[in-house]
């Protein structure tokens, strides 16, 4: 485990999760709004939207600890011309800023629906470009074989959508459980509260979203395993330095990473997909999707740690 790069591990993972969650929520909004209208959907999705900001801010704060001289921090913005790191920081703060503005407008219902959708689209694009820039920081280092490979952007984008989707699922169900708990104080027990909180439309949106998230997780899991296999194959045949990197992807932590992601994005997601419609109460689904998210989050953090451990440079 790489403790030295913990700030970067936290930042890259949280930022990617935030971007992925924002994009996934956008997709849910667009698809569901056609059937039920924006107002009905907002009720379901807005709480998840509000959770993205804190996650992104937490990531940006973590990245500050990567700078050994915080007094000079603003200097990192100086080299837009050739430094992907400068671009990443600009895009990261841009995504966070735009996201905040959008969340505020959404909360207050300011501007028209179309205007907010346009802003959401811009924010999502900035977020995806952020992930691309993040990838290029490592891909552009021609001196580091383990990073100078298409596996880097492929893995970063896969993590973005996998963690993002599961985070949305966990947030959606978390919000529902919270509402049920609040409502149950005034109603005749949990059952009554749940029927009040989760109306027919909300239930349909939630179950459809969870099914979609389950499918997405399973597909992305497959993609991730393919990327890992191809990456290892590439490194193993590329010389001594690359071989040293390949050796990092063996042993207990690597196996733990694979098992965690498989359980979370594979097994639990299959259950999520199958039981999303048939579950009679919200609680089992909430536990299922939250467990899935937690397992994958830990797995991806371990994976990112191994990514930094795999940094071996050519030369002397």
């Amino acid at each position: 485990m790489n403790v030295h790069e913990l700030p970067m591990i936290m930042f890259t993972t949280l930022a990617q999760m935030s971007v992925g969650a924002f994009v996934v929520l956008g997709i849910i909004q667009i698809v569901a709004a056609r059937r039920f209208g924006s107002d009905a959907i907002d009720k379901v999705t807005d709480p998840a939207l509000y959770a993205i900001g804190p996650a992104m801010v937490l990531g940006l704060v973590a990245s500050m600890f990567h700078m050994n001289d915080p007094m000079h921090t603003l200097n990192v913005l100086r080299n837009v011309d050739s430094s992907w790191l400068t671009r990443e920081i600009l895009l990261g703060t841009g995504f966070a800023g735009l996201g905040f503005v959008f969340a505020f407008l959404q909360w207050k219902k300011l501007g028209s629906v179309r205007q907010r959708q346009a802003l959401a689209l811009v924010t999502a694009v900035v977020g995806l470009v952020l992930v691309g820039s993040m990838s290029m920081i490592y891909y552009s280092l021609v001196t580091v074989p383990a990073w100078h490979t298409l596996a880097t952007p492929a893995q970063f984008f896969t993590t973005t959508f996998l963690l993002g989707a599961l985070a949305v699922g966990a947030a959606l169900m978390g919000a529902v459980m919270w509402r049920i708990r609040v409502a149950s104080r005034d109603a005749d027990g949990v059952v009554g509260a749940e029927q009040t909180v989760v109306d027919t439309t909300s239930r349909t949106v939630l179950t459809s979203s969870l099914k979609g998230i389950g499918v997405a997780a399973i597909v992305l899991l497959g993609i991730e395993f393919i990327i890992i296999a191809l990456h290892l194959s590439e490194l193993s045949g590329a010389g001594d330095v690359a071989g040293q990197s390949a050796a990092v992807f063996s042993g207990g932590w690597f196996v733990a990473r694979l098992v965690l992601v498989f359980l979370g994005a594979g097994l639990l997601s299959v259950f999520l997909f199958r039981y999303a419609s048939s579950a009679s109460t919200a609680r089992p689904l909430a536990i299922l999707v939250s467990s899935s998210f937690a397992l994958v989050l830990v797995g991806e953090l371990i994976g990112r740690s191994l990514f930094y451990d795999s940094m071996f440079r050519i030369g002397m």
Partner: protein
Amino acid sequence: MDKLGFSFDQTLCNGCKACSVACKDKHDLPVGVTWRRVAEYTGGTWQQDGDTVVPNVFSYFTSMSCNHCEDPICVKVCPTTAMHVGEDGIVSIDQDKCVGCRYCEWACPYSAPQFDPSSGHMTKCDMCADYRAEGEDPACVAACPSRALGWGPIDELRAEHGTLAGVEPLPDPAITRPRLVIVPHRDAQPTGQGTGAIINPEEL
């Protein structure tokens, strides 16, 4: 203005590391920061020669610091522009801008930028700018007892010693185009075709 560089004659180097110590001493470098390092590259095995088995073992040294490259990857990746190139081609670090993110350290195939924990900044060879301003040689060049190290306008060094800038264990010079000229050891192996290994990695 002439771009400056180093030359290194492997045929003359006996690996005494006086250059490394001189550099560390002159710049008061803390433990763990070593701007100039000497790698011992060794290889070989036994060969059948008729009825005789003979060894073809070889060993040679490479003294390496910043090569003040023509295409410095450290300058390209630095987010603060602290890493910059002077008119004389010397790559140096503006300590007032550096945030110590260590991105340049990841990038450089010669390990030239080194992190100083006490200042929280990157540090590196600037070819003893203060000595040169006084008309003196860089400390490492002055200290070399066998005169293996040299410095000066890179065009002159190339005219005198040739244009070779990479042998094992150095990386492909095409990556950053180092302002470095090497006079190779008789056993020196081409970059990328090495059969040996660095046997003093703990010193690098």
